[in-house]
């Protein structure tokens, strides 16, 4: 966990420093903020696609989108995931859909291409089902027990702090990543079955959980972003 946090902070600081240094070299004129949206960026998570293709235990996809309001972005993610996990004493399966909604703040507000290094927040919600089958071997006084339980219509909520990059590669093509620090998961379902893996969140436990998206986007721009110069 400590090493994860170190990676997270180090990577963030490196990119922050790099982009601010770039900004200092060019010294662009100070721009007035224009809060009228200039485009919609829609993308997908390549990691989910890769895992779905390469693994027979995970099936999932995620679509990401954001709209700019100056250096603030209204961001939303919609996705689905299902997992088949072989346990030491049984099997676990889940399947569900989720969405996240939140705000990203672009710390590179002066970048003419609207490249982003951002910090943000998300609220997530998931609707899912899960089932578990496992074998219990008790003391010699009782016979072994095979337990099968389902959580047919469970829901869950959580919050995330996000950090990431969006970089314009060519015309409307963008690449980016989003690192997610997930916390405060709550679940509602069968009281006899504690949720293990919450779609969109991950393993439900007391400590933090981490997520990472490696994304490709296409930006549909309906308005050329004007850099308004302040009159001196």
């Amino acid at each position, binding site marked *: 966990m400590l090493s994860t946090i170190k*990676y997270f902070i180090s990577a963030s600081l490196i990119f922050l420093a790099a982009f601010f240094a770039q900004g200092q070299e060019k010294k662009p004129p100070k721009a007035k903020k224009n809060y009228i949206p200039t485009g919609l960026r829609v993308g997908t998570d390549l990691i989910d696609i890769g895992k779905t293709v390469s693994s027979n235990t995970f099936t999932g996809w995620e679509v990401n989108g954001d709209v700019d309001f100056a250096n603030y972005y209204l961001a939303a993610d919609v996705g689905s995931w299902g997992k088949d996990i072989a346990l030491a004493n049984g099997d676990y399966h889940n399947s569900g859909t989720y969405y996240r909604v939140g705000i990203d703040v672009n710390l590179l507000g002066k970048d003419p291409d609207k490249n982003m290094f951002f910090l943000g927040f998300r609220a997530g919600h998931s609707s899912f089902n899960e089932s578990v089958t496992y074998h219990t071997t008790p003391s*010699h006084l009782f016979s072994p027990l095979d337990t099968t339980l389902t959580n047919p219509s469970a829901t869950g909520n959580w919050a995330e702090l996000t950090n990431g990059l969006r970089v314009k590669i060519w015309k409307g093509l963008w*690449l980016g990543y989003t690192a997610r620090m997930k916390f405060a998961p709550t679940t509602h379902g069968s009281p006899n*079955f504690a949720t293990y893996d919450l779609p969109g969140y991950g393993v439900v436990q007391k400590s933090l959980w981490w997520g990472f998206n490696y994304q490709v986007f296409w930006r549909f721009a309906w308005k050329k972003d004007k850099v308004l110069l302040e009159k001196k």
Partner: protein
Amino acid sequence: MKFAVFLLIGVLFGSCFNDGNCIITATNYMHIQFKKETTKTDSALDLTTIYISGADSILAVNAATKEILLPLDIHHPTTLFILQRSNAAKSGLVSDTLLVGYTAQSKVITKECGAFTYYRDLKILYANRKDIKAFSTSLLTDPTLYVAGSVNYQAYAVNYQIFY
């Protein structure tokens, strides 16, 4: 260059997932301590046998003990215990009856550890002894307190104290 940077970040964050530790605190053993009614101090009972509903056999004790771990029937939501003990005052055997109810909750710890059943909401449905003090309503054990080859009562949460 941009592609190389993205690849590097992907590798960095690809290792950000761990599945927690394999610490299993689930148990089906209920921890009961015996106390003297007058002094509230430990009281060693001369238990001879214990009948446990749903069990394959009767538990033979034949020893004086001031606490005991009793296994709950994992196949049913209630377990009946009949504790038979020697009573010098009455020059014979005396039986105490205890019927407990509970709920079970399944939890997957990790894929390497597996899934386990946690017993909670423990309550006495019937007891012929009335002076019973309840403590934890969950059956829990601390795996770090296990002592190989012997029973360490300290590793189990105390559920009831029965006063004699």
